Every structure is written in C-alpha cells, then in structure tokens.
C-alpha cells in the first residue's frame, strides 16, 4: 500500500501573500483590495515575510532549495478564483527532496511550494456566497512521496508535520487541508480537498477498505479523483478530469525572480526528537514528554529552563497540574509547584489556586511523613485483603490505592507508590 499526501497550511503572516490586506479578518469581505479581488489594473507584490516562513518550513522538512525561485500562473475557471488563475509554483518550488523522520521510518517530501489561497465558497440552500477575505492568503503546499504505508503512519506523519509547523508559528488549530493519493494496486486514486486530521484518516481508512474490497472481488480499480463526504464518511467519485495540460502554467512576469539564498531560515524545533533525548537523558517516559511539548511551546520552555534544577518527572507533573487547575501559566507559579512536588507533596486544585493568588501555601500542605503513608497503606490493605491479591495482577487496582492515599494525605503519588512497593514486597516475603 502506498499513500501520498498533499498538505496545505496557511502561513502566520500579518498580511496576505501579494497585497497588504490583513490575514486575520473575521467579518466576510472586509479584508479585500483590488489585488486580492483581481481588479483589472492591480498588481501583486510579494510579502517577504511569507517567503521567509515558507523557506523555513522547507528547511525544517530537510528540503534543498535552488538559489532563486519564481512564481507561475495556474489557469482554471472557478468562482473562488477572481483572476481565473492562481499564483503558485510549479517548475521552481521553494524546496524539494526533503524528508520527515517517524522514528526509523523516513517519509520523503517531494516539494514545498508557496502559493495563494482562493476565496472561500459558502454553499447555502439555493445560492452560493463568496468570501474574498481568504483570497490571496499565503499557503504552503507540502507534497510527500507515496512513502506512507499504514493508517498509523499516516496519523503519525500528520501529527509530526503539524508539530513542526506549530513550532514555526503556523496556526495548527486551523484545520489543515489535504489531498490523499492511495494505491493498493498499480492504480492511483486521488481524494481531494479533505479538511482536518480526523477526516484525512477516516477518508484513508475508507479508501483502503474500498480498494481492498474491489481487489478481493477482482473488480478493476479506476484511476480517478474522488472527494470525501464527511457525513457519509465515504469517498465519492468526482467525475472531474483535471490535468496539467489544461492549467497551462506560465511564468508570472508581474513578479520577478527572487534570490532566496540569503534568507535566514527560522530554526526548526522537532518536539519528537527532543522528547526522545530527554527520555534517554532523564529516564522519563518518552510519550509523556512528547505529550507535554508536541504542541506546547510554553512547556518546552519550562523544561529547558528547569531541567538542570529539578527532576524532569516533577517538572512534567507540575506542568500538567497547572494545565489542569491553573489559570496562569507563568514560570514563577510553575517553579513554586515544582518545589512543592520535589519536597514530596502533591498539591491539589485549592493549593494551585492559592499559589497563584500569591498566598503562602505551606499552611495547606502537611509535611510528608512516610510513617503516616505506611499507616494509611496498611489500613487500606487490612480493610481489603482481596485488593492485595488483585494488585499482583491488576495494575489499575494498585493505582487506585495510590491515588486515594495521595489525595487523602496530599502527598506525591510517587512517594505513596514507593512506600507501597516496599511494603508489598515485604508482605510477599512474609507470606
């Protein structure tokens, strides 16, 4: 099975790609000008900031770039395209021949290109509306080689890509758009214009099953373009034929040739490899680290700041406590929480709120006392002998005990866990 992806992501610029209209308007058709509505006489002028971000993305995806790039016109007729051509890149993309690493697997990136977004079409009952706010917004199109081989790889690829883009300030809350190429046989089927990670994966799953079924029944698979219907969770034949022949790409001579060799790319951050490094360095579960930092710059910043002073596990626990209970997410509060946890306490919601409001929190926290913990554990075990037996095979039951005691005594669950382990081993010896 071969899966290839074409992902479109909007760039975090103040203004659009070829005009000075804001990139962040809400009210329909308020951020428009002669250029992004294609008025006769208007001219595009390239947004250098978009060029820099697109270049940084291509570098982050390990692409190579030529010294200069240029733009081309892709001509097609559709109501969302006011000039009836899209300014895009074909012959000379901003980056090519890159890759993303998913652990040991390498997913090759064929090309990264910079282009303008068409307007937004809103289909209503009996009529259609067009919002030109989106027309001319900067996009990168990221095209992979068909190196994705399983649904899980697809999910990991999208998440990894989104994380890389997130660290380059791309708004990944905005759902990414993608075209999927899936071939189980020699025949390639394209599923176009899918919005959102979940839909991309659902569409892939449906299409894989559809093609498997056809193969099993010896029915030939048609080379075609399909679309994804979210409500039906199915792909549907588009019966539209498009080819490069009809697009008639030519150089856009309203723009020039741009030297990108001197652009300083923004340094990429790969959360997944950082999680791996931290995990190896401090012996903390890799996925717990990744979960904290994959889409959270603050968390990564906290870890980088405190890793030398405190235990990584405690930093991560403090981060998740603050995320759950806190309203502020500042470094001072975090450090207070870390210190409390380092002392073996485990603050609850009230404690966090108290810390945030600047109160002295020591009054709310009892001093950790192993004897007290041991006493609690014993009474818990004594009250329920079965629990002990179950705990040998049932990790959940054990965690339940730990959680309850930690809560009751307001101590760090890790401390309870340690005591419980030593007590249990001695119990086992006795038996």
């Amino acid at each position, binding site marked *: 099975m071969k899966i290839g992806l074409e992902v479109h992501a909007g760039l975090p610029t103040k203004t659009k790609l070829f005009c000075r209209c804001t990139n962040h308007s809400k009210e329909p058709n308020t951020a428009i000008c*002669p250029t992004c*509505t*294609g*008025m*006769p*006489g*208007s*001219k*595009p*002028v*390239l947004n250098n900031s978009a060029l820099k971000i697109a270049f940084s993305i291509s570098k982050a995806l390990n692409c190579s770039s030529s010294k200069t790039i240029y733009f081309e*016109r892709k*001509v097609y*007729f*559709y*109501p969302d395209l*006011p*000039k*009836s*051509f899209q300014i895009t890149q074909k012959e000379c993309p901003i980056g090519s021949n890159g890759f993303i690493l998913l652990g040991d697997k390498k997913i090759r990136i064929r090309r990264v290109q910079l282009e303008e977004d068409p307007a937004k079409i809103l289909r209503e009952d009996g*009529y259609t509306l067009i919002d030109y706010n989106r027309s001319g917004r900067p996009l990168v199109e990221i095209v992979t080689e068909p190196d994705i081989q399983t649904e899980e790889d697809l999910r990991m690829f999208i998440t990894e890509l989104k994380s890389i883009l997130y660290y380059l300030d791309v708004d990944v809350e905005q759902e990414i758009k993608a075209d999927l190429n899936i071939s189980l046989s020699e025949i390639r089927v394209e599923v176009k214009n899918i919005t959102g990670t979940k839909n991309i994966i659902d569409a892939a799953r449906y299409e894989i099953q559809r093609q498997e079924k056809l193969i099993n029944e010896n029915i030939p698979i048609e080379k075609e373009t399909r679309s994804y219907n979210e409500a039906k969770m199915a792909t549907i034949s588009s019966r539209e034929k498009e*080819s*490069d*022949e*009809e*697009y*008639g*790409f*030519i*150089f*856009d*001579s*309203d*723009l*020039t040739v741009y030297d990108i060799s001197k652009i300083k790319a923004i340094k990429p951050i790969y959360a997944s490899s950082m999680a791996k490094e931290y995990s190896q360095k401090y012996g903390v579960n890799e996925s717990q680290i990744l979960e904290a930092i994959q889409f959270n710059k603050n968390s990564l910043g906290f870890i980088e700041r405190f890793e030398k002073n405190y235990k990584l596990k405690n930093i991560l626990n403090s981060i998740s406590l603050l995320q759950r209970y806190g309203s502020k997410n500042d470094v001072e509060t975090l450090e207070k929480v870390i210190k409390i946890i380092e002392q073996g306490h485990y603050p609850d919601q009230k404690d966090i709120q108290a810390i945030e409001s600047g109160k002295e929190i020591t009054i709310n926290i009892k001093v950790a006392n192993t004897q007290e913990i041991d006493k609690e554990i014993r009474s818990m075990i004594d009250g329920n002998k079965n629990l002990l037996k179950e705990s040998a095979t049932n990790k959940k039951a054990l965690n339940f005990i730990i959680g309850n005691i930690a809560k009751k005594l307001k101590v760090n669950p890790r401390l309870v866990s340690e005591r419980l382990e030593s007590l249990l081993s001695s119990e086992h010896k006795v038996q």
Partner: protein
Amino acid sequence: MNSIEEFNKKQRPGDYYIKLNSELVKLNEKLNIFNTISQENISSGFLFSVKDNICVKNVETTASSKILKGYFPPFNATVVERMKNNGFSFLGKTNMDEFGFGSFGINSEHIAKNPFDERYVTGGSSSGAAAATAILKYHIAIAESTGGSISTPAAFCGVVGFTPTYGSISRYGLIDYSNSLDKIGIMARKSEDIKYVYEKIRGPDSHDTTCVDKKCTDTDKKKIILIDQLITGLDVEIEKEFLLFVKKLENLGYTIEHRSLPFIDKAIPSYYIIAMAEASTNLAKYTGFKYGLKNNDFSQQYNTFFTNARENLGPEAKRRVVLGTFVRSASVKNLYYSKALKVRSLLINELNKILADGFILSPVMPIKTPRFEDTNKLSPLEVYKTDMLTIPPNLCGFPHISFPYSYLHGMPLGAQLVTKHWNDTAIIDFVSKWELSFNYDFKYNLGVLR
C-alpha cells in the same frame, strides 16, 4: 473648426474651459478620439489624456472592450497619480484597439480616424492617444505599447511617441495585455515635453515589483546603425523617403553603419507567442462576474456562465485567447512558448552587441498609412507582419522613439530610433536635435494655455 484661432473667436469669456470641454466632446463624435471625457473642468495649463487601458479612479476604464463596460476602478494608476501630482489636468480616456490587440486602431467599437485625413487609419493600438496629440496643442498623451502600439499610431498621426525601457515606468493600474512586454509611454508634439514628463513619471513604485531604476554607460550619440533585414522589403516609396532621411542625417554629421542580423525575423513569431500566451491568462478574469459587463443570471452552471460572458470579447481578442491557451498547454509548451522565450533572450544578446556601438534606426512601418478599406484586404497574419520593425525593440524591452521625418502625399512618415536599456534620454535628445532642422506639421492646433 480647424484651428485654435477659429475656436477662440467663438469663445465667450467665462465659459472657456467648459466650452473647450464640450467642443472636445463634439470632436470626439467626429473623430472618436475619446471614450470618455472627464467631468472635471480643465483647470490648469497642460492637459493629459490616458489610454483607456490605464486606470483612472472612478472613471470608466474599459480597454475599449465591451466586456469591461461599467468598470470604474477604485484607484489611480501610478502614472496617473504622478501626472496629477505634477500639475497636469486629466482630460479623458483615449480610444484604442481592444486590450491593445491591433496595429491600426480598427479593433474597437468606435474607430478613431486619422486627423490628417479621415479616410486613413490612425494606427494602433494607442489610436486615440495619437489622434488627440495631433489635434490638441497643449496636451500629453499617456499611452502604452506592447509590440508597437506607441510607435505606429505616433508615426501615422505625425507626433512623437516614446516607449521607455521595460520597467522604467510603473505598470500599476495598467490593464494587462502581456505583462513581460507591456510598457507605459508618452506621446507629445515635441520631444522636450516627453523628456519633461518622462522624468516626472518614471522610477520605482512599491505597487509594481518590475518597476526599477538603473543607470547605463554613455553610448556614441553620433552613430546610426541600419540593420539590413529591417530596411528590406519596404514599400518602395517608404524606402526612398527613408534613405533620403538617412542622407540628411549624414549631412547633419551622423555616421551611418550597416549591420546584418538574419535572426531578427524570428522576432515576430516569438513576440506573438509570448504576447498571446500571457494575454490568454490576463483575459481569463473577464468572466462577467465581478467587474465590467455583468451577467446577473446565476441560474447557469458556472462554466456556461463564464463561457457566455466571454462571448463579449471581440474577434481579435478571441483569436489571441485561443492561440495563447494553445501554446501554453503542456504538450506543446516546449515547441512554442519555451522556444519563444529562448528567441527573446538570444535576440536581446544580439541586439545588445549592436546597440553598444550606436542607435538602430528604421522606418516605423514597412507600409504607408493604410486607408480603412485597405485594412479589410489584409489577413491577420499580414497585419502581424506589418509589425516587423516595431516588434524587435518591444520584444526586448529596449527604449525607442517614433518621430516624423517627412511628409508624403500629405501624410506624415515616422522613423524609429532604438537604444540600449536605460539609455532612454539619449534617444529623446536625438529627436530634439532633429527638431532643430525639421518642423512638424499639424492640421489641428486646438487647445489653450492658461
């Protein structure tokens, strides 16, 4: 009414400018110079008109195309802005071949007639600009050339027409024909007016990436080069008059040199391929949807809707859209479009070598000014061939100037002088020197100076 004297006799004090304005409207009815006349009164000395493919804020701008009827740009072209900022008064929009597609000014709903003799064409595509300059005494025409649209009508109407280096005057506000070839230029009755205006309107513009400012080294201002291929196959009378003119220049102290460049005949196919390919993308936006002629029947499928709207393009525009779309298509792109680009860059190299030694001089047109009925006999291909002398400098973006050098059977004859990139003022200065020994004739001298 033939002269400013006659015109002035009829004037009543107080209604001078308005009168002038309405007289121009009458003239318009007769000669079809203007598509629209500005509602603003003419309030200061020099007037300027603007070719109808250049945007003037809130003034209907149609590039003489039915498909753009009702397009009132919400902005001024940079060149219009700069003219106004320099105290020129906007007079009106001048007629042209639809989207600039034409050599004679006949591809338009209303056709401008030659002020020297109304039986003759004005030349195109800046037909109204040239006619207005031949009629109005104190007036500057802002025109535009893609393949000869300034030189040709300037020659046929006996005025000076200047096409600058590609990229030296901002194209912001120009309704595109072929973006890599389009150049906004100037027509006037005297070269010194052109020089004055050129200095005011040229130079970088934040709205047009391709508009820049460069300097170049001086060239020999006394050497005239004739390219053999450009002075053969001319109309017999044109050839005779042109060689007399060359003799005159020799007598004035210029040295004449002959060169051969057989390859130059590839300029015409190269030009038309590039121009049509780009035009077909530029005209794609006219779908009757967002500006210009609008179709409010939204019951059709969008493809049908767009196709119906494009019915409103004229026959020459349709021809260029079809041919241009064809040469862009993937399977033939390397056969035509890519080759045409190679020819262009080769030609720039070859002509640069020649232009390093001196100016290139030729007639503007290989034929005499045709009468309207003569143009009907020409096939589109024959019309394209008449551009053989104006296309090389236009294809290569070299600055060139068209100016009257003689009169034959009462009609003016124009010559074209070409120089290397960014050496624009040298050719304007050449014409200024020529004007010291040659007087231009004008049949009309309408207009006033404050």
